[in-house]
Each structure stands twice: as C-alpha cells, then as structure tokens.
C-alpha cells in the first residue's frame, strides 16, 4: 500500500485483467467439465467407448427417435440391446446390497415391468442406469454405450418420469411439456406438434394453459408423463405413472406407453401395482430384497398356476390363523387377507371351508377367482401389491 500511486494503479489494473482472465477460464472449465469428458471420449482417450465406422447415411434417414431430427444422427448399429449384467450396489459396507447381481436384457419396442415391494431395489437400479448412482460392480450397456462409464451418455439416452410429482407449479401444462422436450434436445416445431398430440391423446387439452399449481394430482401426473415422453430417449423409465390418474385416462396413458414403445424406445415400467402391469407389459421382472427373483412374460410366470384358483379369505380381526385343509397348495397372510391357491377341482371344498370359517366367526368374507399375476407376486415376495385388493 506504500507504493506510488501510478505504479500501484498500473499493477492493480493489470492484475485485474490477468486474474479476470484466469477466473474466466476457470469458470468455463468448471462449467464444461462434463463436456471435456465427452471430448476425451471423442478423441479416443477412452478404452471403453468403441464406435463402429460410419458407413454413410443410415437406411432410415436421420430421425430415428421422434424428436431427434435436429441433433441426433443415425448410428450404424441397427438393432440395439439394453443389458444389465451382474449389477451390484452396496450403499454401506455393512448393509445388505440394494441390488444383488441383477441381470436383464431389453430390446427396442418392449414394455418391461419392474415389479417389487417398497425397498426392493427398483429405484436403485433405475438410478444406476440413469447415471445418478455408481454401481459397486457389474455393467450396464446400451448398444455400444457403456452407461456405467459414461453417465453423460446415460442421461442423454434415458428419459425419466420420477415417482414424485414434477416441479411445475409455475409452468403452464403446455409450456412444461415443451420445455422438457427442449431440454431433451428436441426442435421447437416438433415439440409443439407432439405436445398438442399428447395433450389430445391423454384428453387433457382443456388444462393446456393452466398453471401446474392449479392442476389436480392426476392431470399433473399426466403432464409429467408427457414431459418424459414428448422427446423420448431409447430408454424411458416410468416410475408409477398411473398414480392419482383416473381409470379412463389410465387407459389412454397405457395406449401412449404402447405408442412410445412402438416408436422404438424400450419402456421400463416401475410399479408395485401388479394387476395393471399384467395387462400392460410385454415382459416383467420381479425384484425382491435386491435380487431379480423371476423374469418372463406375464403368462409364462403364471404357467405354474394353470388349473389352480385363488381363494381369498378375509380373516376376522383378532381371530386365530385358520387351519388350512390339505388341498391348499400355498398361502400368504398379509394383514387380514389370507390368500390361498387351490386346485380348480377342489373349488367346492374350498368354498365349504371358507363358509365354515365365516360360520365360526373366524372370517368375514371370501372370494374365489382365477389366479392372476398377483398370486405369483404374492408367492414370490410375500407381499400384496399396490392396490391389488381394492377392486
């Protein structure tokens, strides 16, 4: 501070210039750090991302995904697979794994259900695919992309409808959908067209200019669905998409899920509502305690239950566990519901048994019906699904 005025001024001004420059570079560096990561990949410093050589424009033009016409180019690989192999995620060293050796493979156009009770590890799986969590071991690949190694690619390739409502209080429904598409890389004209189409298909056009804060839970959920699918990636995760949605629009929503798959995306449906999943998915996996315990088409999973029926007994609160006759193949008690599976041939005996329980005051009601995926699910997980018994 004891320097002469002019010299001091000069140093101060020079210093300002130099350090502003340095800071500016620092700012750009930090802001574009994941860009740098991408550039490294492009120039080939990575050993995991191998690109097949370009062989001229693809046979199907440049726009493969619905709103990809601006920024996405065709890739030489024609038919991709999404595969998860031996995926393990351990949050704390001493706690049981949240994902324990999960392996699955899904292709374009498939609607794939991820079923399991709360805390089974479904969200952990989804977040690892999306690049939000790092797997402890195992691999996740989409075509030539290694999604564990390249979370930036993962986020570009996956669309996501979280279970929580979208933060769109101060967005008009239409704007929310369009901006979500813009963020996903869509072009304005495409997005406007697709937004209109989605609003119409879900029959929520009348709320197109309503602010999110004023929408009912169900309409808001549908707007969230539209945000996730207006510019869908090859992988679309829908976490409980039908929550709060009325029965009529649920049907419309399932049609749109099918349409998104029809355009070439693989749609993952995360749910604990087995009855809905049974009607809507091509294949499904049941996850429990971090493990994939069953996988297949709904009918293949039900194969074991052919020739069987489900007898549900609603036990009187406080009554002792009823003794089960010999013909009962299996049973699960959840709350006051005793779900049993019996041979079709023993249906009459089953009804007699249930009636005798009611007569003795041990049970209040019973219901005999066809076995469903619900029974498979109960047998596998020991839990009753979402709103399985509500209807």
């Amino acid at each position: 501070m004891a320097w002469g005025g002019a010299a001091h001024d000069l140093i101060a001004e020079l210093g300002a210039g130099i350090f502003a420059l340095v800071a500016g570079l620092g700012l750009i560096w930090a802001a574009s750090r994941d860009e740098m990561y991408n550039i490294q990949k492009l120039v080939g410093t990575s050993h995991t991302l191998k690109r097949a050589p370009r062989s001229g424009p693809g046979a199907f033009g440049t726009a493969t995904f619905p709103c990809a016409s601006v920024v996405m180019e065709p890739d030489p690989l024609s038919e991709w697979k999404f595969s998860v192999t031996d995926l393990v995620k351990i949050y704390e060293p001493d706690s049981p794994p949240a994902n324990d050796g999960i392996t699955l493979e899904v292709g374009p156009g498939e609607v794939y259900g991820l079923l399991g009770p709360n805390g089974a590890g479904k969200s952990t799986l989804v977040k690892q695919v999306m690049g939000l969590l790092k797997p402890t071991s195992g691999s996740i690949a989409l075509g030539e992309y290694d999604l564990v190694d390249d979370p930036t690619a993962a986020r570009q390739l996956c669309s996501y409808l979280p279970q929580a409502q979208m933060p769109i209080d101060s967005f008009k429904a239409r704007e929310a959908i369009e901006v979500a598409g813009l963020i996903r890389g869509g072009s304005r004209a495409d997005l406007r067209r697709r937004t209109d189409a989605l609003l119409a298909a879900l029959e929520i056009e009348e709320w197109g200019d309503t602010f999110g804060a004023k929408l009912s839970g169900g309409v808001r959920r549908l707007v969230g669905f539209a945000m996730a699918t207006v510019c869908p990636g090859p992988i679309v995760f829908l976490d409980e998409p039908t929550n709060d949605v009325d029965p009529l629009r649920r049907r419309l929503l399932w049609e749109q899920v099918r349409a998104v798959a029809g355009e070439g995306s693989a749609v993952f449906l995360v749910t604990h509502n087995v009855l809905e999943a049974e009607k809507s998915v091509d294949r499904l996996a049941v996850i429990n305690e971090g493990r994939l315990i069953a996988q297949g088409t709904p009918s293949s999973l039900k194969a074991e239950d052919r020739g069987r029926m489900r007898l549900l007994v609603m036990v009187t609160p406080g009554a002792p566990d009823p003794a089960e006759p010999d013909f009962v193949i299996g049973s699960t008690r959840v709350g006051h519901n005793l779900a049993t599976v019996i041979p079709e041939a023993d249906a009459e005996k089953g009804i007699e048994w249930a009636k005798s329980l009611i007569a003795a005051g041990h049970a209040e009601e019973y219901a005999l019906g066809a076995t469903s995926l619900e029974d498979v699910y109960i047998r596998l997980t020991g839990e009753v699904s979402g709103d399985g018994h509500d209807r």
Partner: protein
Amino acid sequence: MTVMTAEASVARLPAKRVGPGNWLRSYGAMLRWEVMSSRLFLPLLLVIQILVGAGFVIGFGLLITEVDTATALYLATGGVVQSLILIGLIVTPQVVSQRKMEGSYEYLWSLPTPRGAASLASTTVAALVAIPGVVATLLVAVWRYDVTFAVHPTVVPAILLTVACGSFLGMAAAHGIPNPQVTLLLTQLMIFFVIGFSPVFFPPERLPNWLATLHDYLPFYPMALAVRSSLTNGLVDMTANAWLVLSAWTIVGALITGIVLVRRK
C-alpha cells in the same frame, strides 16, 4: 392379420451430443426452465431485493446516527458487495437445498443437460434478480447521503469475480453436502459472518488483529476491496494481493465445483 414391416421394428441409437453447441443450447433451455420456475414469485422477489438493498443503507444509517461521507460510501458499497456475495453463496445453496427437500433435485439432475450449463443457468437468474437491489442501494445512498460514486473499468472484473467466486463456493457446498438441512444452516451462519464479522460494511481496522489478518486470506475482504475501489475514488486501495486471493478462491471453488457436479455416489 397384418404383417409388421421390418422398418417398424428396427431402432437405432442416437449419437451422443457433445461440444460447445450442445452446451449453449442446454444452457438456453435450462435458462428457460429456471425463469419459468421462478416467475410466479419473481415480482415479489424483485421488490424484496430493492427494499433490502435500500433498507440496508438507510437502516445502518439509523444505527450509526452520524453518517459522514466515508461511512455512507462504506455502507452503500458494502450493500452492493453483500448482494453480490448472497447471489452465489446463499441463494444457490438455498435453491438446491429446497429442491432436494421437495424431491425435484433428482429429476433435474437426471436431465441430459451438461451439469455446468444447468448450474450456470440457475446462477444467471439469481444474478439478474440481484441487479435492481444493487442499483437501489447506490441510488438511495446518493439521495440520502449526497455521496458521489466513480465507476472504474475494474468494476467489471470486480463484480464478475465476486459473483463467480461466491457462486462456485455456494455450488460446491450445495451439491457437495448431502444433507440439505446442514447446507441451509451453514448458509445462515455464512450470512451472519459476512455481515457481522467481515470487513464488508466497515474497514478491517475495527476487527481484532487476528480476525483482520484472517480476512486477508478469506475471499470476503478482497471482494469488498475490489468492488469498493472500483466504485469510489480514494476510499480504499485495491492491492495485487487481494486480486490474487480472490482469484485463488475463485479457481479453488471452480475446481471443487467441477468435481462435485459430476460425482456419483
């Protein structure tokens, strides 16, 4: 029965989007998102910013009673510095914490935009919102205490560095500390420290020696010096050392932010 054509079942993967074009495009889209997210309470926020900016100068004047020119300049420029620090160091952590608590953080973090572009968009909105408050502070000081300000070219790096440094440190804390409640408590403590125990509204001579020395190495005093020296004549002397300390904090903040933004648990 119809036969599905081959085309219908063939799907191709898009190429990964990279480069400055993608970055700018993402920044633009996220800027839209941020403006729309805050627009319902934006008018209220602007009014509050103006009231707080003006209120600090008037309020501190009441506290001190005899406000001479130098004190008025200290108060006014201190108010400006405080607004600039709050943008990054307080507003950013609060926005991020709020998003973590309401559950939207993970959705926003799952979007395909480069994280730096998304964070910068959020800071941009916070910075734009702060401008009316800064202007109000200066105008009220001129009106109430009849002081004059001088604007030197160093005002540009001074403001940029102050905002950038505060923002990087704020982002590092906001994204680096897992528990949003802890982040919020820390930011409260930070406001308290910046206003009460940092030479932002008053000269460092009033602090105990050890604290004044400490402030030579913390970013707040250099921020105050940089802004104050570029808005006034002869009140304080900005030193090369202060530029160095401020730049160093900015770079360290940028480095930590860069790491925290792409980290996965």
